[in-house]
Each structure stands twice: as C-alpha cells, then as structure tokens.
C-alpha cells in the first residue's frame, strides 16, 4: 500500500473511532447536563428577584423548593392580560414568570434572549410590581469574549441593574441601557436612572444588550402598563 493510501485509511479509522467515542459520551451525559442547565435556569430566575443570594451555594432541593413555592409561569396576551398555561396555545403569548408572595404578585420576570456579539445572550430581568423598577438581572448563558464582553456574567454588572427605571419621569417607556463607561461620568443627570455602568473593552456587547433589552421590554409594555396602573388580575383561580 502506498504511503498516501495508508495515511488516508489511518485518518478515516481515527475519525470513526474518535467520532463514535465522542458521540457516545455526549449522548450518555446529555440528560445530566440538561438537568444542570435546568437547575441553573431556575436558580437564575430566583436570583433575579433576590430569592437566593449569589454568595451562597444551594442544594438542588433547596432551589427546587423555593422555585416551586414562589415562582409561576404564565403567558401574556397581546392586550397585556395574564393568561393560564393551558390557554397558551389559543393566542400568541409571551412567557412571563410571576414571583408570588402569599398569592400576591411581588414582581414579574421577563426572559431575555437576545443577540450578542458572538452568539445569543440569555438571562432574566425582574421588574417590580410597580411596573417600572428593575428588581434584578441575571445572565444564564452567553458566548461573549472572555475577559471583555464576557464580564457581563460578573456580579457587579448584574447587580448594576437593581433599582434602575424602565420609564422616565413622565411615565414614558425608555428601557434600560448599558452606558459607555461609568454612568456617573458619561450620562447626563436626568438619564442616570435608565443607565447601568458599561464594561470597558466591551462597547459592542453593551450596545447589543441595550438594543435587545429595549426590543424585548417594549414587547412586554402592555403588561408593564397594567402593572403601573395597578390593574393586573391573576388568571381565574
């Protein structure tokens, strides 16, 4: 057999062996990985409304217990009315998580899925029942550049959002944006409640995230307006 043929045969065999090995491993471990991702997702929903702390570690059961007790998933119709899960198929709805404290809504949580620089940025933005104050923000997944845009996963950046307003003084929707640099120095006084500190070296990530938040929040405006006017009704119990 010529050298060339030998190399090709060897390469093909390698590919088959390694391919089989990796596929087997990936398939076998997938259920566990999915379980971890699901738990991480729930933990982040809880983080967004400060039901768990970033500094502590929790067991799987603890997260599940708090989640099942306090968080419920509903849909939001086009008029902003909150509808039951089982009606979700009847009209186009947006998913919304409600944080319930003694059967009263304390805050609502909007899932964020938006384009970043290199891939999707996913997370949750929690808004207080007043419909305008950001209660918390978490990132569950992103593929931004580590050390630059990847800093969005840092605690300080996420905590940055707490207490910001998505509406201005007159009650008009303005969303919340990532500033270029520090809010203190870069943003005029009247806009400060709507800006969070940016990350140096990650201007683009900030821009994408700001745009994404604006788009997503504006879709949720109908329900936010209802919260502001204090006329949210829980779907028929």
């Amino acid at each position, binding site marked *: 057999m010529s050298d060339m043929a030998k*190399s090709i045969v*060897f*390469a093909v065999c390698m*590919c088959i062996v390694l391919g089989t090995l*990796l596929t087997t491993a990936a398939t076998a*471990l997938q259920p566990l990985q999915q379980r*971890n991702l699901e738990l*991480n997702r729930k933990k982040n929903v809880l983080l967004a409304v400060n039901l768990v702390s970033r500094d502590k*570690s929790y067991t799987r059961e603890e997260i599940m217990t708090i989640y099942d007790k306090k968080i419920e998933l509903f849909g939001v119709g086009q008029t902003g009315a909150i509808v039951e899960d089982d009606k979700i198929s009847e009209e186009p709805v947006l998913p919304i998580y409600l944080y319930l404290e003694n059967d009263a809504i304390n805050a609502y949580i909007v899932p964020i899925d938006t384009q970043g620089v290199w891939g999707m940025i996913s997370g949750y933005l929690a808004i207080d029942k007043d419909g305008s104050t950001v209660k918390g923000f978490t990132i569950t997944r992103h593929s931004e550049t580590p050390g630059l845009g990847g800093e969005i996963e840092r605690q300080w950046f996420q905590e940055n959002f707490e207490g910001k307003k998505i509406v201005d003084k007159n009650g008009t929707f303005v969303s919340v944006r990532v500033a270029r640099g520090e809010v203190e120095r870069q943003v005029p006084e009247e806009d400060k409640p709507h800006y969070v500190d940016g990350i140096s070296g990650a201007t683009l990530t900030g821009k994408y995230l700001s745009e994404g938040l604006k788009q997503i929040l504006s879709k949720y405006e109908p329900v936010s307006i209802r919260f502001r006017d204090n006329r949210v009704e829980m779907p028929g119990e």
Partner: protein
Amino acid sequence: MKLTRTKTFKAFAAPAWSNNPINMQMLGICSALAVTIQLKTAFVMTLALIFVITGSSLIISLMRKIIPGNIRIIVELGVIASLVILTDEFLRAYYFEISRLLSVFVGLIITNCIILGRTEGFAMSNPPHLAVMDGLGNGAGYGSVLLSVAFLRELFGSGKVFGVDVIPASFYDAGYENMGFMLLAPAAFIIIGLMAWLQKYLTGVDGKDQ
C-alpha cells in the same frame, strides 16, 4: 540501580522540576494567568490537564509505530481534542458550577502548547511507560506552578484558601486590606516571573548555558 537513576523516574522528575514546562520552558502561561484566581479552579484545571496530557501521551505512544509520519500532528491533535472534549462533557455533567467558572479554558487545553509539545516531542519516540511518566511529570510540573500561583493570589487577593477565610477578622480591623491587584491577570504574570527567577536561581540555570 537507585530509583532516582532510572529512566522512568527521570522521565517524571525532569519535567516536574528541573525542566518545568511553565517556569523553565515558559509554556502554557495563558491558562496559568486565567484560572489561578482561586485554588479550586486551579485544582480542577490541574486534574483536567494531567488527565489529558497523560492520556494523550499514552495513546500516541502506543500508536507511535503505526501513525503515518505525514499526518502525525493531526492525529496527535485529534487525540488531544477528543480527550479535552470528554473532560469538558464530564465536568458539565458532574461539576456544573466549576465548569462554569472554568468556562472556555477547559476547551482551550487543546491549544495548551505543553501537551502537543510532549506528544510530538516525547511520546512519538518513546515507549508507553516512559510516555506516561513524562505526561504525569509535566502535569505535576504545570499543576504545582498553577497551584502555587493560585494559593498566593487567593490568599492575598481574597484572604482565603480553597474558599475558606484564613485572614483573621482582627487583621482587617487593624487596617489590613486584600490586594485587589492579585485578582487581575498581571498579578499572575508577576508571580510567575518571580517563581521562574527563583527556580532558575535554585537550579543554577542562568540562561548563559542555553
């Protein structure tokens, strides 16, 4: 023959100390900067690297006589990359939090020049038992530097060792502060530089011999 004179022992000991991949050869520094803020991540990274480097050295050494010379680098990379992906999948399934902290750096073990260097430079031309010892030695050499750097950075940067507070509260009351600089990448550069200098001084290598 004394144990320390055997070829097997030398294959392990040389890279672990006198020919340390980081301090003496200045390889694999990028990951040493990235994962040494805490001992925990440095420890897992060390284990992952030892697994990958020993495994790939063994596999390549076993196949060294049948690997066609013209595609050997690709074969080596294929083996290394597969082991790295296996490690990554394993961490994501069983040690989710740590895999999040290590983020891309487990995947980047593939590009760690130490591993390709050892498979190409040693495993391709040595029998399996020596290749395994060489892999373990390099893993130990890399890991010892990583853990030392992480120990210093975690101790002075966050006042902790393996996540446990060790600086007594009375120190903080007396005005002691954690060095924020230790948490930044340049701190690792400086520590590695000092360690390389110390080791070269201790082993009597002054650069002129090379």
